[in-house]
């Protein structure tokens, strides 16, 4: 049975193909279109997943869409009515898009998938999230927590998964939304909404949560069972084109920070405060769900589940014994969720093997890479596995920055060793070098380590795996010799690497360990600021040539920057990508 899952029209559109109960391919449209957070119908991603599965549209048995458009439309109309006349501008902007596109999802799917004539199904947004977390998790039975901005009406839900079934129990409804609260602060701090929330999380450790008590007293009314209401007089996201209003400005004593301007203690403290609020709400919800279900396992999804600091506290401070967070926990993962929900829950089919990695994107053979490099006029050496990992590890240990492109691309927002930039975590200057000369991004942004799974507990205060870089742990006191991946609060957002999932990457880190005694490397996404993570050898070569990276490893090809001919471009690439 072949099921295509689709999520689109808001942000991070994606497609996933489930073949006989197993996701064989999944991809975000942005990687193919090269437009960050692309929300258009994922035509290129659909083309890729079908090609990967060896199928044509007419071979599909069902297509699933990740939410219920008419319920969402009803929520929007209800909001316009409730906030009349302040909602006029929002109404005027949103309605043409709805009338032209969002109300015609089945027609658009049929047009894009011609000549597909089979059924189209629709799952509730948070059902897609819940299914995307539980049905690929290793648990037979699990409590499920989904938290995001908003779906139809639901902004957070508790659910239970048993076998192939997922049952939604309770929900918090719009406009009371933890995701939108976090986005409101993201906006106020001068970052891009639905894009740069992770920057607020990265900024938080620089500050003190001095506003926490005031926010919890006046803005967020948290109940003992983890449910909450927001005082909407501080926000304008329900009726306007901005997230916050004048009352919010007064609360923090000034207008929102202008993007790209200087940040100081005030901004750090606000970020620290909202981060603490987020953690407090998620922890209270998780404890309540544990009390209600009594289950030892928790599966999480939704955009807020990408907040790895909160996730780390959930596993440390709640009674849950195990935690699984979907690697594509945001809306892109909804494509996986709806496909699994149709197959497992609706069709009552048994679940397949649990996910152990997120390598669901396209791969390129050495032959394809070699052909591309020859056409590009690049100079390279082709090495075998052993020589490749040794040379690369030596280059990292010598202080070089490496573009690392191997195997199938990751699904989800994190680079996990397939499309990564790697560097030496011991060098205290490496963070600034990477931020300023390679990624061209804000100096405060921390970097994350990829650590050998069997050595993780030796270096970090962590007792479980973190294969998707979605947990934060403290660097152990005796091991604080890795300044470039240690944040100001001595924490690190780590990825544990298993040899079974990525053998070459594991061997590379092992070689680095042999040279340095440090079983981890800096791993950051292979892109520059505002650019989607690279997908093809062409994207990777361009990114390598445009930045100050020293080496590029594409499959078994090893390239050194000084050997390369100058890149011939007729565009200013810095203007290609909108800053996030």
């Amino acid at each position, binding site marked *: 049975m072949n099921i295509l899952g689709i999520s689109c029209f808001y942000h991070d559109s994606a497609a996933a193909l489930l073949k006989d109960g197993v996701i064989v391919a999944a991809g975000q449209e942005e990687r193919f279109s090269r437009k960050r957070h692309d929300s258009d119908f994922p035509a290129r991603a659909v083309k890729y997943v079908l090609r990967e599965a060896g199928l044509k549209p007419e071979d599909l048995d069902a297509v699933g869409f990740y939410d*219920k*458009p*008419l*319920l969402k439309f*009803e929520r929007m*109309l*209800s*909001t*316009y*009515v*409730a*906030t*009349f*006349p302040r*909602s*006029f501008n929002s*109404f*005027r902007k949103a*309605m*043409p898009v709805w009338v032209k596109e969002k109300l015609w*999802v*089945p027609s658009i799917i049929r047009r894009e998938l011609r000549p597909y004539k089979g*059924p189209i*199904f*629709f*799952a509730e947004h948070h059902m897609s999230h819940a299914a995307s977390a539980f049905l690929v998790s290793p648990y037979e039975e699990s409590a499920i927590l989904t938290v995001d901005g908003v779906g139809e009406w*639901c902004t957070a*839900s*508790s659910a239970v998964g048993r076998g192939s079934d997922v049952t*939604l*129990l*309770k*929900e*918090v*409804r*719009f*406009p*009371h939304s933890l995701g939108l609260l976090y986005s409101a602060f993201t906006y106020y701090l001068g970052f891009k909404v639905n894009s740069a929330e992770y920057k607020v999380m990265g900024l938080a450790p620089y500050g003190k949560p001095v506003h926490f008590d005031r926010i919890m007293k006046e803005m967020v*009314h948290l*109940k*003992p*069972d983890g*449910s*909450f*209401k927001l*005082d*909407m007089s501080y926000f304008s996201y*329900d009726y306007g084109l901005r997230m916050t209003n004048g009352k919010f400005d007064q609360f923090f004593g000034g207008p929102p920070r202008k993007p790209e301007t200087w940040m100081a203690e005030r901004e750090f403290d606000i970020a620290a405060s909202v981060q603490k609020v987020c953690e407090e709400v998620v922890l209270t919800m998780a404890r309540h769900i544990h009390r209600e279900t009594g289950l030892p396992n928790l599966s999480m999804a939704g955009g807020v589940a990408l907040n790895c600091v909160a996730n780390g506290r959930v596993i440390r401070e709640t009674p849950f014994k195990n935690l699984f967070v979907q690697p594509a926990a945001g809306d892109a993962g909804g494509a996986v969720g709806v496909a699994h929900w*149709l197959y497992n*829950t*609706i069709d009552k089919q048994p679940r397949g093997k649990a996910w152990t990695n997120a390598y669901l994107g396209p791969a390129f053979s050495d032959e394809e890479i070699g052909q591309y490099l020859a056409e590009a006029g690049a100079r390279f050496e082709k090495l075998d596995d052993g020589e490749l990992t040794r040379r690369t590890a030596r280059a990292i240990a010598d202080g070089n920055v490496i573009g690392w492109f191997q195997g199938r691309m990751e699904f989800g927002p994190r680079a996990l060793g397939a499309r990564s930039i790697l560097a030496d975590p011991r060098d205290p200057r490496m963070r600034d070098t990477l931020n300023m000369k390679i990624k061209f991004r804000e100096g405060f942004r921390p970097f994350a380590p990829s650590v050998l799974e069997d050595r993780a507990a030796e270096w970090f205060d962590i007792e479980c795996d973190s294969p998707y870089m979605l947990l934060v742990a403290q660097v152990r006191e005796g091991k604080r010799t890795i300044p470039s991946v240690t944040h100001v609060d001595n924490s690190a957002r780590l990825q544990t690497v298993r040899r079974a999932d990525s053998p070459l990457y594991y061997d590379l880190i092992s070689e680095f360990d042999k040279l340095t005694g440090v079983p981890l490397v800096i791993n950051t996404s292979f892109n520059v600021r505002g650019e989607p993570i690279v997908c093809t050898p062409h994207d990777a070569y361009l990114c390598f040539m445009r930045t100050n990276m020293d080496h590029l490893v594409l499959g078994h090809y090893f390239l050194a920057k000084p050997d390369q001919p100058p890149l011939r471009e007729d565009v200013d690439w810095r203007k290609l990508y909108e800053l996030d």
Partner: protein
Amino acid sequence: MLTVLLALVPARLEAWFNRLPLHNRILLGVALTVFVVELILRTWARGTVAYKRWTAFFQAIGAVWTAVILSVVYFVSVGLVSLFQRLFGHDRLDRRLDDGKPTAWHAHEPSPLGERQGARHQF
């Protein structure tokens, strides 16, 4: 037969056109002219500056009309429903903070059509 039809249709059309009031004849004439010019430009001048300006002009007219229609819809229908809801103290967004309820969780409401049948619909 075809010859007779070809002869009859323009004659009938002309008679119908002449019976129309003057303002309708003018409007129809303008619409026909726009249609014919669009066809000509689209066929022979696509991508030219003239075609881009022609398209931009009508897009601007479209934007103005969209704004006018949406304003009418908003202030008449949305406004009226909003007025009634406020009269009866109904708030679909449940924004009151002092509602005395111990929880803000709502029970999830499954589709009344059942899970499988409900999945067929966008609501």
